[in-house]
């Protein structure tokens, strides 16, 4: 697996705030690039896979609180 191309520490941000900030950050990447995300929120393990399912981005690594998301 490639190393991440970008890093975003979302801290304790969760729910809609987390995924909207993540969306803005992902817009800065090129297709295929990987974002390394730190998300401490207890809902993240469920929310982030759901968000990836909805948006088409690929969750390539999930080890809470660390997530690697590949831009579609």
């Amino acid at each position: 697996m490639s190393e991440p191309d970008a890093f975003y520490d979302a801290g304790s941000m969760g729910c809609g705030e987390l995924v909207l900030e993540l969306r803005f950050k992902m817009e800065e990447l090129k297709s295929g690039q990987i974002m390394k995300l730190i998300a401490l929120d207890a809902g993240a393990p469920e929310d982030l896979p759901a968000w990836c399912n909805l948006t088409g981005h690929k969750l390539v690594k999930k080890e809470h609180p660390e997530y690697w998301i590949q831009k579609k």
Partner: protein
Amino acid sequence: MPGKFCVNLTCSGDNKDKATVAFVVANAAVASDKETMVFLSTEGVRLGSRGYADDINEEGFAPLKELMENFAKAGGKIFVCSPCFKKRGLDENNLVAGATIVGGAKLIEFLSVDGGSPCVTY
């Protein structure tokens, strides 16, 4: 995954918790590539006025003004009920970003055409 999502909000300063959570959920929807609309009616219409949300900051969430600005920045639409707005003597020339004054037909259109839309209410 395409589709629409509606958040129906009837509160503002009278229930800052619900007003805030409504926009958090709206942001989740717009961030998930849904064509998202927040419908403001009754007391909710006050949030359509620029400056009104400035002092609403619920514990555990970003300030409501910021949530609303981010929502509009991401392409979210805010529909403000016309008669509710007028009844409260609010200025339609002083709307927040992303807001449009509408009537009930616009809400019905959003909810019922092109596959319809799920809707949550606060």
